């Protein structure tokens, strides 16, 4: 109990400290309220919705009327379309390591004093700041079977008609991955570039004295010291990767041939806004949130093993 009285004593602060504490609380409150209002509440709401067959009607009462327990989750596990979209979403994640490797290589290239490097950096960043809908439409044209840039190039090089990029169950996935890598490259380049510029030159100088070659320097200095950046990019792109939606909505009709390009969020959207099955859609959202949570947790748990920092 001494502790409690000790705490009480602590409360007796000077006027200035009190004022400071009040302000501190206000500053802390802003993100906390934001979190409660825009994250915690919707998540809890979505979870309750997922236990109902609600279609949006009759407000909360309408929702409670349609309580169905875990029926939606049980149905979900037997839903072939759900598994298909989960698989497709996972396949799209192949783009993440590809994007990271390319990003690192390009960042290393751009980390040199070569003429025009600023222009180059800006160019690679343009896709990142462009509207996703706009560039999706643009790429839908790039992939166009008859008129697309890609097939025009293939034809001029080989004389043969290129493949139907968005009209084939496998190629449509390849096309989406290429597009996503292109769209995300700018971000990883910028982050890697910042990471590269943070590595003290003295490390390389010491390695040179020891007679290390380029690859050894890369493997033993650059890569480990970039690992926090790698970790950050991996976490954020994984989370983003599970939430792919706009690309599919814009570039395909009805999720692509045989639903081959549809992602989980696309399926969720269709269930919610085309079938009015808000409960079922919420169940998908909760599963998605769980997947993302688990993967992020594994990542954080595993980071001690490979993420190095300069101390």
């Amino acid at each position: 109990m001494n502790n409690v009285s000790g705490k009480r004593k602590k409360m007796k602060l000077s006027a200035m400290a009190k004022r400071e504490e009040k302000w501190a609380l206000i500053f802390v409150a802003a993100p906390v309220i934001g979190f409660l209002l825009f994250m915690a509440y919707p998540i809890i709401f979505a979870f309750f919705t997922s236990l109902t067959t609600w279609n949006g009607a009759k407000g909360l009462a309408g929702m409670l009327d349609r309580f169905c327990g875990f029926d939606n989750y049980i149905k979900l596990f037997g839903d072939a379309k759900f598994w298909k979209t989960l698989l497709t979403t996972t396949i799209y994640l192949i783009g993440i390591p590809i994007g990271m490797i390319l990003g690192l290589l390009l960042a290393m290239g751009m980390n040199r004093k070569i003429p025009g490097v600023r222009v180059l950096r800006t160019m690679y960043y343009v896709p990142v700041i462009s509207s996703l809908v706009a560039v999706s439409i643009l790429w839908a044209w790039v992939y166009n079977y008859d008129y697309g840039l890609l097939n025009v190039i293939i034809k001029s090089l080989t004389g043969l008609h290129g493949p139907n990029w968005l009209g084939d169950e496998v190629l449509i996935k390849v096309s989406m991955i290429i597009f996503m890598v292109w769209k995300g490259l700018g971000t990883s380049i910028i982050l890697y570039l910042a990471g590269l510029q943070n590595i003290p030159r003295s490390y390389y100088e010491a390695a040179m004295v020891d007679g290390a070659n380029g690859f050894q320097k890369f493997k033993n200095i650059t890569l480990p010291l970039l690992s926090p950046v790698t970790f950050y990019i991996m976490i954020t792109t994984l989370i983003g990767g599970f939430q792919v939606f706009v690309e599919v909505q814009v570039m395909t009709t009805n999720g692509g041939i045989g639903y081959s390009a549809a992602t989980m969020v696309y399926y969720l959207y269709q269930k919610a806004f085309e079938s009015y099955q808000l409960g079922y859609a919420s169940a998908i959202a909760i599963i998605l949130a769980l997947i993302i949570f688990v993967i992020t947790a594994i990542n954080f748990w595993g980071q001690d093993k490979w993420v190095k920092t300069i101390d």
Partner: protein
Amino acid sequence: MALTGNWSEVFNTQPLGINGPSGAQIEVKEEATENIKVDADYSNADLKVFIFAQDHEKAVYQSLIDRFTESTGAKVTFEVTTSDEYNQKMLANKAAGDMPDIFYVGPEAVASYVDDGFVQPLDNLVDTSVVNDLWGSVGNAYRYDGKVAGTGEGSLYCLPKDFSTFAFAYNKDIFDAAGVAYPDPANPYTWEEFVEVCKALTKDTDGDGEIDQWGTANAFQWAFDAFLYTNGGHFLNDDYTKVVIDGQQEFIDAFQFFADLTCKYKVTPTVEQDTALGGYQRWLDGQIGFYACGTWDVGAFMDKNTFPYNWGLCGWPTGKTGVSMTRNGSVGFAISSDTKYPEAAAALITLFSTDLEGQRVLSGETTGASLQIPNIMSYAKGDFKAKIADGTIPYGDNVDVIFNYIEGTDKYQGIFVETNYTYNADWWSTFLGGGYEYVLTGEKTAAEYCAEIQPAMQEALDAANELKAAAQQ
């Protein structure tokens, strides 16, 4: 992917272009609406109207609202979105319990809006006799007796914004160049005749060894109905509880014929060519002989900047039944059950739907570009047709084809497709999402695909019927 349009969610699966921006430049002149008056004082009313519309439609409705405000003193907030986003926004309104006073409800959604208590019956609010002067079946589409909507029984829940149909059009210039006689609007082609004409129109016009002009080009999503129903086929049984396509000869033959147009007779662009450039764009470029023409497309097709060819209307080719069929469509104005001003709202939707002056504007008499067929039958058959005949309203040849589909004759029939009668269109999206394209490429037969996809469609339909049962509790 449709940008905007007149019909609701069934059409949301359409490729870019169909139902897309009509391109018609419509200017609403001040004098066009100056005769419009509502004799009532609604100065205490504050209405919110929320619909989807294209820019030129929005301008027409805004001008009607301005007149309404001037003559009644009512305050009206008018908000517009795209048809793509409409359902999404309405769902948010429903969930939040924040419904606008006036909004669109399509025939396919009447039952669910009524069951969920969002709309109120209009029987005591509007002079329902005005509905008698509207096209018969469209009034029926918005009646609901608590069992099945659209049978003409029960209370009236919407006043129609429009009644549209999906006729067939042909490019006269292509017919002339090929030396083929124009189709006879009084006698639609049989499927066999249609294939022969299409073959004559399919050509390599620039001699580079590749076909660049085709008989027809129709997206499966919205054109298949015309082939299915004319052959006596259907997706569902009579009470919309069972999917019955597996082994149904009428259905399979229609589907196979639709696919054969592409893979056997080769009178349409291939599936690849179609994903590259949709039929709508090719039709506008003069590469297509026959193409679908919604009543909302007329303004664009008559605009020489959009479509610099001569064209006329004809019927879709006929299968087993010998009757040319297509889908009719509509969307209606409903009044929220929560509105504080039902009388004012009723007066405003009456103005939108059945006011003669308003219809003159929308049907193009005062603007020179037709957005829709007039709702008022007597006006449509009288002045409207006369104004087409004397050139005041530019229109493709044989406007009677459109009237025939809307009214129904022994040769022509427009219908509401089966998605109108089910709680949601999941079973239909399941059909579309299962890879029907492989039938069009010839990798599967229609019979194989139907057998393969039916169970999943049935599952989706069962789920929809469960939802319906829950909503009616």
